[in-house]
């Protein structure tokens, strides 16, 4: 019986080739998109799940009263260790690390690498697999290193490198050999080795190596340490959080303790929730889009099935008269729709394989290859297709099978008439979705353009940045300033500056500042930027009052420049700020004198309001990372080559890994750029599906109304009159759809944009454009499709009786 159903289903598909193709391709596109999104969500959801005891693994986060006072994802050096020592009944294990960036080399291969220096229990605690080496002892000896297989290939060209060594530079320029004691299998996506974009660590050093880099995990002064805890089964994370606060309070100053509240986040939740839950938001957005696109494809399916049904009524009538039961008819129609969905699913897997590289780019991830999926996942897909086939076929099946047999024999529409309304409602839904997706895509790209075109307050053009070898002491500063001057001498260079921060949103130093003579309770949180005297000139940051640092002769105090926001927060008139003294909390009793005030610039991404900032002299703060070189306009590749040669002669053995400021900025908007690409992909897909649906319906309409068109032509209708006849129906539908789509699109985009402190205004333009595009494309499509019928000789169609 079932075999016969499928045979009939197959023949019916083959008979209606146009209908079948539209249905199958529309569905395949929808299913393929769904597979991509599900795979992506799966990847994101499985981050940290493969860690050992994943359900008991936590990361310590800090809630700062003032967001500018410290980092959310860092905590105080000894905290995690202290918790384990004090509460072994609650805390089973801990792990801390300090992330540094330094030069790593092997023979002639040299790169700047992110290096993770942390507690030796890491490998065992999280169950990371070592291809070589002993997990228990790999990170115990000083000057040993564990590297990932990827790094082994990069430096040695092979994986069996146990006992070999790599050279790592310290911050004062000295170099030392590190013996490789373990090669780590590429770890599953996790927030221990890959905390965020800036902490993609592939080289792991034991904690006892820290002093080589002049760092210390075990001092409460260090508040830039990432801490993890593994709790005992049954331990309450909230309770541990409270205990952390107590431990912290007894070890740091009461001022600082009142500012910060440590808390635990489960690692399995951490990834989705981090950075304002941006990953989670992205997943929700994508899942919604996928759901809608799949929905649209299903709507097409239902629509086409119902409209085709009128042609099959006679067949249904005959079957009923011959004794077919309603159930048998339903089964027949369901097997047809299941067959279509199965063909589409197979096709969509092919599409997935074909489009995977493109989607990898859009989603910035590595989607598994088709054959990397496990059989059980294919089984899920099979079940999904089965459910989808039944879901899509059930409505048409019931409608068709419940027609009265006499009615259907005579080809009378009867109850079919009501479906016209339903079908129109479904198309309205589709058009609304397409209009919402399109106008959202336009607004997202407007906002992304705004990111790059907004006057950020400074000039980022032709600025190349590169990290310098670190040597953080007065001698090192003197040297790096000499190097800077050598670069600045080059005729292709306008200006060069040494600083810790560049305007890419990554600001490491922040502090409470307050006016001399007041106390810290009246202080404000401010970002402390370590810069030299060329910084303001290189980035063309305008001064609104006073002087640049280092320009005022005879000052004995540390000089600093504030931005206008900082002045406002301190209740200082920018014009009268110069000469005032400030004190910084936690920078060794640093007292400074304000020498100037700059205008506010957007130092970070536009999500954030401009914060109070203090430009402090690199000579007093003693830390730096970047040299920023502003090139003169000219042949950029040649200029880069000149820089490269200069670098090689000044800093032999140090990699020149330069970035243009534009690229650095683009990196901070990665999520938005991704969303923009995804939105456009979804737009193309949704419009394609809508148009497939329209093609199908118009084709059905044309064949159904062939006689009517003939009659109208005989009665004197012109060709445009006939085309208008079909257009009218759809134009009303599009207009209703737009009336629905615009307010919904407005609300969605309003919410999205409100996450950005600086954003474009929503006006009518993106909505008008999307309505216009939909109208034009649909009209063109319908006109093309109906033109043939409109010019045909009416005698033929009238004769079809």
């Amino acid at each position, binding site marked *: 019986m079932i075999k016969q159903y499928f045979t009939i289903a197959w023949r019916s598909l083959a008979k209606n080739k146009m209908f079948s193709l539209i249905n199958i391709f529309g569905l395949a596109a929808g299913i393929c998109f769904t597979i991509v999104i599900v795979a992506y969500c799966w990847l994101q959801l499985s981050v940290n799940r493969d860690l050992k005891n994943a359900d008991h693994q936590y990361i310590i986060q800090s809630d700062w009263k003032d967001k500018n006072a410290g980092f959310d994802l860092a905590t105080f050096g000894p905290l995690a260790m202290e918790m384990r020592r004090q509460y072994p009944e609650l805390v089973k294990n801990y792990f801390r690390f300090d992330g540094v960036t330094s030069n790593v080399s092997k023979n002639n291969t040299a790169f700047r690498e992110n290096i993770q220096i942390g507690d030796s229990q890491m490998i065992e605690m999280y169950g990371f697999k070592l291809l070589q080496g002993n997990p228990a002892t790999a990170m115990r000896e000083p000057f040993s290193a564990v590297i990932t297989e990827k790094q082994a290939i990069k430096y040695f060209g092979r994986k069996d490198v146990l006992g070999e060594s790599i050279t790592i530079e310290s911050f004062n320029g000295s170099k030392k050999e590190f013996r490789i004691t373990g090669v780590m299998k590429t770890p599953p996506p996790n927030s221990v080795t890959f905390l965020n974009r800036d902490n993609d660590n592939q080289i792991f050093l034991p904690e006892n190596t820290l002093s080589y880099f002049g760092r210390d995990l075990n001092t409460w002064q260090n508040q830039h340490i990432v801490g993890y805890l593994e709790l005992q089964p049954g331990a309450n994370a909230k309770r541990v959080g409270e205990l952390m606060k107590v431990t912290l309070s007894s070890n740091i100053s009461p001022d600082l303790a009142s500012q910060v509240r440590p808390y635990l986040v489960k690692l399995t939740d951490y990834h989705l929730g981090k950075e304002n839950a941006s990953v989670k938001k992205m997943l929700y957005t994508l899942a919604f889009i996928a759901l809608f696109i799949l929905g649209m494809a299903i709507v097409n399916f239902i629509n086409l099935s119902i409209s085709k049904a009128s042609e099959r009524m006679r067949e249904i009538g005959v079957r009923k008269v011959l004794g077919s039961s309603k159930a048998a008819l339903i089964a027949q129609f369901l097997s047809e729709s299941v067959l279509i969905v199965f063909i589409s699913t197979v096709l969509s897997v092919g599409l997935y394989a074909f489009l995977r590289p493109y989607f990898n780019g859009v989603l910035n991830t590595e989607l598994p290859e088709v054959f990397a999926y496990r059989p059980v996942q294919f089984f899920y897909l099979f079940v999904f297709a089965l459910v989808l086939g039944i879901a899509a076929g059930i409505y048409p099946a019931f409608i068709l099978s419940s027609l009265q047999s006499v009615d259907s024999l005579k080809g009378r529409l009867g109850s079919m008439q009501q479906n016209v309304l339903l079908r129109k409602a479904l198309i309205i839904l589709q058009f609304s979705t397409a209009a919402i997706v399109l106008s959202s895509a336009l607004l997202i790209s407007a906002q992304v353009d705004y990111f790059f075109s907004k006057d950020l307050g400074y000039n980022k053009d032709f600025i190349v940045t590169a990290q310098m070898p670190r040597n953080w002491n007065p001698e090192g500063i003197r040297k790096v300033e000499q190097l800077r001057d050598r670069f600045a001498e080059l005729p292709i260079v306008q200006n060069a500056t040494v600083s810790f921060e560049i305007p890419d949103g990554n600001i490491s130093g922040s502090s409470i500042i307050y006016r001399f003579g007041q106390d810290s309770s009246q202080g404000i949180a401010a970002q402390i930027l370590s810069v030299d005297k060329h910084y303001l000139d290189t980035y063309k940051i305008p001064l609104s009052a006073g002087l640049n640092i280092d320009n005022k002769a005879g000052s004995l105090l540390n000089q600093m420049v504030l931005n206008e926001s900082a002045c406002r927060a301190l209740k200082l008139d920018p014009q009268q700020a110069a000469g005032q003294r400030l004190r910084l909390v936690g920078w060794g009793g640093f007292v400074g004198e304000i020498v100037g005030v700059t205008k506010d610039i957007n130092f970070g991404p536009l999500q954030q309001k401009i914060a109070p900032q203090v430009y402090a002299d690199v000579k007093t703060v003693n830390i730096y990372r970047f040299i920023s070189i502003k090139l003169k306009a000219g042949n950029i590749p040649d200029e880069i080559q000149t820089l490269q040669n200069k670098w090689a002669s000044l800093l032999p053995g140090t990699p020149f890994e330069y970035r243009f400021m534009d690229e650095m900025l683009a990196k901070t908007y990665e999520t938005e750029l991704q969303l923009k690409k995804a939105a456009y992909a979804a737009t193309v897909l949704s419009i394609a599906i809508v148009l497939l649906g329209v093609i199908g319906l118009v084709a059905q309409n044309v064949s159904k109304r062939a*006689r009517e068109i003939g009659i*109208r032509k*005989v*009665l*004197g209708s*012109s060709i445009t009159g006939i085309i208008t006849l079909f257009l009218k129906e759809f134009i009303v539908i599009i207009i209703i759809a737009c009336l629905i789509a615009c307010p919904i699109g407005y609300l969605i985009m309003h919410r999205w944009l409100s996450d950005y402190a600086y954003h474009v205004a929503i006006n009518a333009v993106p909505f008008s454009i999307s309505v216009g595009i939909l109208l034009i494309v649909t009209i063109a499509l319908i006109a093309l499709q109906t033109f043939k019928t409109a010019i045909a*000789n009416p*005698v033929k169609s009238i004769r079809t*009786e």
Partner: protein
Amino acid sequence: MEVKQGEFVAIMGPSGCGKSTLLNILGLLDDPDNGSFMFNGIEVAGFNERKRAELRKRNIGFVFQSFNLIDELTVFENVELPLIYTGVKSAERKIRVDQVLEKVQIMHRRNHYPQQLSGGQQQRVAVARAVVNKPKLILADEPTGNLDSSNGNEVMQLLTDLNEQGTTIVMVTHSEHDARYSHRIIRMLDGQTVLENIMI
């Protein structure tokens, strides 16, 4: 052959003899392969589709065997259609449609759909639609072919009345009975007119 203004001509002949082709050419639905066709004193053979359509909608009304009403439109809307295509204003359309519906005695069904009417009623609507534009010529292709005899007679009477009011009628029929309503019968065989019977 020639049909004069005000004539009522019946065309008869076996299936496939070319009656309907002739009617299509007369109705400007088809262009003749060769030869000449003078319509109202103008040579129309070789006219393109647009010119033919223009001439057709102002001068010719059609009545078909299978009525060819549009199912989705009401009686009123079906009859109104030719007036829309010739650009008559809405208020005048209403008056003229109601007049002609009155004339074919189908006024009481003006808001019904074709499916809800009997065959005779449907053909009366079709006749109403054919004459609403006051055409000079009505072409009827077996107007009674799908009707029983009493309904058939009603339709024939309608056509006769129209003819008496001055409309030229050319009708294809198989029925000797219906042919008797006409002034003259043209008999066809294999695409040729073979005989003409003058009835009056």
